[in-house]
């Protein structure tokens, strides 16, 4: 773009900004407070849906049939909707990220938890990869005996990251997912995990052994998830002395905004576009699929990205349909540069549109209604050019979105997108 044109656009932006400022400029503090309101709403909703999940799991355990199992699976999928939108709070807030290992750790060596197929291979050098807690009331772990006779939320929390391997995931959504679906043995072909409901039957109906322990495990893991989400809900609750929300709001506007933007960009680029899509796509690796047991990955990605857009727009819609709206980054940026604000709005909309294509294609809905379903693990199959295109489009839009988040940082005078307190690897 010629320099003169750039200058005139910049001038125009200033004039627009001037007229808007004549109305009511948005204050950074108001935006930050609303940000904490969204965090609180998202974790409250996640907590509520986890309680619903527990109810359906209790129903499954009371009467293990394909019907009750499917209802529990549906409840799990619903529970993921608010949680995936909460991940945008992970990367700058240690209080959230520390809990994440217990809530959403992934990928996992599922052989730690329960029976697996004979072709199963865990992470290299992970001695816990085939420990099978459900089948073993005591684990011999490198000479140390671990008592797992009683499976309680506390025991599971202790077993998480057993032996220091991040793949030893004993708890959280993905452990529960594995317990509801079982391994997906279809590779890049159609189909998810096919665990029978009788894995939870008592007496002679029990399949794959140790049903009593499996029942205890499923319930304990769900209870722990509820506890953890409740903790996070409280950390973000208003008017609670000494909680994280209070600390965050007192940390200074620029420092707090830096955290907000850093976490948005980190989820968009490094985590979602990188770890969760590009690795799986380029390596054609179903091991790197996010919701690999349930094949719900397309929705996980969709709601991850929506979580980022929520922070910009200041909008969040709960599972019950209610909207939360308030002072947003969008208002703040509009006051500085309406052009940039518009570019950001467009970028977030484009990302959701591209993810909507992924969702439609995965479920064979919308424009793909006449096709058969193509889940994320099929999209990443070698030679699937349609899948490559769909995933590639999402990655590209997330990269563009991240560049605009950087531009937003500059507009807000944030010169270093590394908050002082982020988790050190």
């Amino acid at each position, binding site marked *: *773009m010629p*320099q003169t044109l*750039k*200058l005139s*656009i*910049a001038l125009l*932006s200033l004039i627009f900004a001037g007229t808007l400022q004549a109305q009511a400029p948005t204050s950074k503090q108001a935006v930050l407070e609303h940000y904490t309101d969204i965090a609180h709403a998202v974790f409250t909703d996640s907590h509520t849906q986890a309680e619903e999940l527990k109810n359906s799991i209790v129903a499954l355990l009371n009467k293990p049939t394909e019907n009750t199992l499917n209802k529990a699976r549906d409840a799990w999928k619903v529970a993921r909707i608010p949680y995936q939108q909460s991940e945008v709070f992970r*990367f700058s807030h240690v209080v959230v990220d520390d809990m994440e*290992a217990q809530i959403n750790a992934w*990928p996992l060596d599922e052989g730690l938890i329960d029976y697996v197929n004979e072709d199963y*291979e865990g*992470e*290299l*050098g*992970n001695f816990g990869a085939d420990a099978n807690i459900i089948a073993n009331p005591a684990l011999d772990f490198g000479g140390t005996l671990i008592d797992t006779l009683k499976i309680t939320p506390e025991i599971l929390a202790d077993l998480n*990251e057993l*032996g*220091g*391997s*991040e*793949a030893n995931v004993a708890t959280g959504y993905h452990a529960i997912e594995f317990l509801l679906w079982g391994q997906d043995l279809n590779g890049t072909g159609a189909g998810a995990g096919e665990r029978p409901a009788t894995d939870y039957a008592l007496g002679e109906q029990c399949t794959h052994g140790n049903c009593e322990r499996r029942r205890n495990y499923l319930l304990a893991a769900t209870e722990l998830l509820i506890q953890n989400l409740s903790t996070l809900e409280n950390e973000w609750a208003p008017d609670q002395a000494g909680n994280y929300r209070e600390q965050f709001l007192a940390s200074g506007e620029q420092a707090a905004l830096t955290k907000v933007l*850093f976490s948005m*960009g*980190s*989820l*968009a*680029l*490094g*985590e*979602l576009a*990188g*770890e969760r899509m*590009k690795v799986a796509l*380029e*390596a*054609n*690796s179903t*091991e*790197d699929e996010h919701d690999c047991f349930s094949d719900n990955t397309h929705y996980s990605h969709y709601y991850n990205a929506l979580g980022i857009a929520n922070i910009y727009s200041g909008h969040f819609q709960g599972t019950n349909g209610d909207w939360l709206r308030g002072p947003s980054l969008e208002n703040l940026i509009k006051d500085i*540069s309406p*052009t940039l604000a*518009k*570019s950001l709005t467009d970028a977030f909309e484009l990302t959701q549109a591209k993810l909507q294509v992924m969702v439609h294609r995965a479920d064979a809905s919308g424009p793909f209604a006449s096709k058969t379903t193509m889940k994320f693990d099929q999209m990443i199959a*070698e*030679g699937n050019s349609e899948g490559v295109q769909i995933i590639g489009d999402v990655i590209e839009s997330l990269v563009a979105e*991240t*560049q*605009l*988040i*950087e*531009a937003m*940082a*500059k*507009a807000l005078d944030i*010169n*270093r*997108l*590394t908050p002082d307190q982020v988790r*050190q*690897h």
Partner: protein
Amino acid sequence: MIFSKPRNQALLLFLAAALATTLTYLSKDKQDLEKQVAREIAENTIVNFHQNFALSTKVLSAKSQAFCINPNETTLKATQAQWRLAMSDWQAVKIINFGPIKVNNLSWRLQFWPDKKNLVGRKIKSLLKSKDVIDHAKLEESSVVIQGLSALEYLLFDRTGAKLSHYQTNEGETRQCALLQTVASLTQQTAEHLSSSWQAKDEYLSVFVNTATITPETNMADIATGTPPLTQLIESILVNLETLKNDKLGAPLGLKSASGKTNAFLAEAWRSQHSLALASANLSSVRQLLVNGELLGLTDFLIADDHQALASRLLMQIDAIQTTLNTVDRPMAEAINHDESRAALSKAHTDLAALISTLKRDIPIAMNITLGFNDNDGD
């Protein structure tokens, strides 16, 4: 003396003086100097990095062929030794994570790592068992994990997958040798492509040097202006050093996990037991890129901008880490469980954190630049 580049001293003094009197936010002079420094780094160090890698992969491809014609201990050892050289040269090329290497994700096609789930081993075993034709076309459309140096390491070093007998039987001649030679020649082809992309002066090199700097007049929405060259270089070095610290040293040392349990399989080259030499090659390549030999480098840019102390600190930090790494005289798999070596590696890890902090905090302030997000920002 760290900075002895007489040929450029006069120019530097002149520019420093000019900057001192007229320096405003990203003045014209500073932008011109940035362009010149970027051009000299690209034409000298970056081009050299790529030429070296193109050459060592070419020899590796030739040695793989010779090995397959006559598979014995000697030819295997010669091919393994050449893999180590190519892998060292790759440490340098890998730092330049922008430009041609981004197109078609060539970086992962040249090395797939970390590979915690042993995808390399699994995918190669299954390809060898299948009846699929093994040729360039097949590899290019296949998973990135069966291409490049990681696949070659498996084929040349794996305890079970690389047994000499696999290459000596009839079946081996047809499939395992075919795969080794095809991967080696595709690697060479990719390396040559990268090298020529950087040398064609009218193409990428010029884009790199001339990317506009964002100034207060830049329309913020017009992000196509991109990242100015020295910011781009600093970002790429930063990503590289973070990987060196977190993945190459931190992961095998157990510093990434809560329990602190060591895991030799998380080292970069556990199959070839070459991880430490690679870490050292990695760091020395970063240094070369900063200094740019006798030509103007990033450190010279800092000096011209009146940040002599910062430039010295940067290099002293690198040299101290290099010295520490050099004291470790056993392979990574042993070193992580040996008190003295482990202490040295932990110290290198800590010192790398300080070096990263210099690049992430002090340099952007000194140069008045903003660093963007990188792929390491995430989980």
